[in-house]
């Protein structure tokens, strides 16, 4: 294995001066970091901090300013080569509900030029043997994430990217997935993962990059995480249904990313400025029926993007 050195480690993932905008919103603002081979690094922060965007940039699926390389391959210029070295576990598996697990395995195995026999053993590795004939909709949340993990491990890539892999799981499902990830880390895989669950970070991470508003504000050991935590929280606002779109527009006009998930409008609010979104809506002539601050562990699965 070749690569640049970071201390005593070879560098697997190198991110340099990464910037990404979505319209007026700066999702990532000048982020630089490196992940050594065999290292597990957590991207920690509230919704909208930039975790998912950074992972998508490392995968090269969105355009960005700056430079990212994986195993020495520039992800924009040599994206295919870089992605060969990466397995990806999304927040939620996006396969069609009617697709069978075996068909999903065959698709990804074909894309990664992996022999089908090896691919099927990947199902066994995550405890899904005998599930190849089951449709995606028939799998529980935990099984879907284990399938996602099996797909990510198909060609035995040296690095795995995980985007809040346990955010949709119950306690038992979370424990299963975290246990598998710890085993992968022990086996020498490089792991870069986004999370806002302290227990997940503590179990898996060697290092934590704390993100706020698209910037790295701290680079710390996971045992020092408990005291800090992100300084942003997610607020869910309920407005009359007919005013939903107008409310989202008003908040976005003030530079606040909004997610409208059918249960209300979610925005990130800084400590000491929680009344800001309500003030904006009232100023725009929109009635606020209700609001609540979501606990970190219940926060939404997706980052709030415009």
């Amino acid at each position, binding site marked *: *294995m*070749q*690569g*640049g*050195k*970071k201390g005593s480690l070879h*560098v*697997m993932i*190198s991110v340099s001066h990464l910037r990404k905008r979505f319209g007026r919103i700066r999702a990532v603002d000048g982020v630089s970091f*490196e992940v050594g081979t065999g290292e597990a690094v957590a991207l920690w922060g509230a919704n909208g901090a930039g975790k998912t965007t950074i992972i*998508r940039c490392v*995968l*090269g*699926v*969105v*355009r960005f300013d700056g430079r990212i*390389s994986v*195993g*020495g*391959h520039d992800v924009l210029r*040599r*994206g*295919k*080569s870089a*992605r*060969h*070295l*990466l397995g*990806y576990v*999304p927040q*939620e*598996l*996006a*396969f*069609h509900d*009617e697709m069978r697990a075996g*068909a999903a395995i065959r*698709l*990804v195995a*074909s*894309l*990664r*030029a*992996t022999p089908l026999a090896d691919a099927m053993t990947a199902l066994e590795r995550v405890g899904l043997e005998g599930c190849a004939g089951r449709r995606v909709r028939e799998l529980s949340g935990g099984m879907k994430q284990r399938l996602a993990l099996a797909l990510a491990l198909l*060609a*035995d*890539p*040296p690095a795995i990217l995980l985007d809040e892999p346990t955010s949709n799981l119950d306690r038992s499902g979370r424990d299963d997935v975290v246990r598998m990830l710890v085993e992968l880390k022990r086996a020498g895989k490089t792991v870069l993962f986004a999370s806002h669950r302290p227990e997940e970070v503590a179990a898996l991470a060697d290092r934590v990059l704390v993100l706020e508003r698209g910037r790295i504000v701290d680079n710390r050991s996971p045992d020092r995480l408990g005291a800090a935590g992100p300084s942003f929280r997610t607020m869910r606002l309920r407005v009359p249904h007919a005013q939903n779109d107008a409310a989202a527009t008003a908040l976005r006009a003030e530079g606040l990313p909004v997610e409208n998930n059918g249960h209300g409008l979610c925005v990130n609010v800084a400590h000491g400025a929680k009344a800001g979104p309500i003030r904006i809506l009232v100023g725009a002539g929109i009635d606020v029926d209700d609001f609540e601050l979501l606990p970190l562990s219940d926060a939404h699965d997706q980052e709030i*993007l415009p």
Partner: protein
Amino acid sequence: MTSAAMTLRSSPPTGLRGFARSLRVVAIKELVDALSSRWFLVNAAVFGLLAVGLSFVSLAGAGVSGLSGFGRTAAGMLNIVLLVVPLMALTAGAATVAGERERGMLVYMLAQPVSRAEVLLGKYLGAAAALVGSLCLGFGASAILMAWRGGTDGIQPFVAFFFFTVLLALSMLAVGVLISVLARRSGVAVGIAVFVWLTLTLLTDLGLMAGTLAFRLRVEELFSLAVANPLQACKMAAMQQMHASLDILGPAGLYAMQTHGEHLRVILLAVLAGWIVVPLAASLAVFSRRSPL
């Protein structure tokens, strides 16, 4: 920091071989998706039933008109082709990218070791295979019936008509894919596709008639505007094959035959090919720059 490039022990093929491999994988996935789409299956079944039904009607009337069974069927099928095939192709194309973007599947696909060009072209080829397959079934069933009951006299124009229908389907599919790349939601993509279908099938003809009256268009201008519509190009090409004359189309048809003569077929083929290449190139340009989110 310096960093030498790392490779896996079993690296997949690169270059043209790798491109072809990824293209094939994505195309097969798209083909399977298309064949499991109820909307597509209903369209294909309707087209097949109409084609076979028309064959029966043509056989029943054989001998009454001067046309053979194949000629009568092709003439009858022309209107169905111009109505049903663009709708099938446009909506199939509109479903290729927008739906997967909405579901998050597009990000997942692009997170695999494939290029955007491979994903888009693979999707086009897969949808094209499904579409051409359904046309083969419709035309094939009709041809078997005609050959069985009435012989193979006049089959050549029928085959040529099938060829132009395939070109029309591929061109409309390319337009559908462009719509799908541009639209953020699948519902919007399908809505735009239906609007484009209505425009090409109905509004363009009405617009040409109105334009001719309002602006006193010369016959060559009328021909140029008419032939720019792929449906009209397909219609002219098919009719030229069936009747060897376009006088049935009026002054524009006569002008086309007299001015372009034997070159007309090439012009019409170029128009249809242009409607495949240009929208597909535009789709690639947009898709390679646009966020898959």
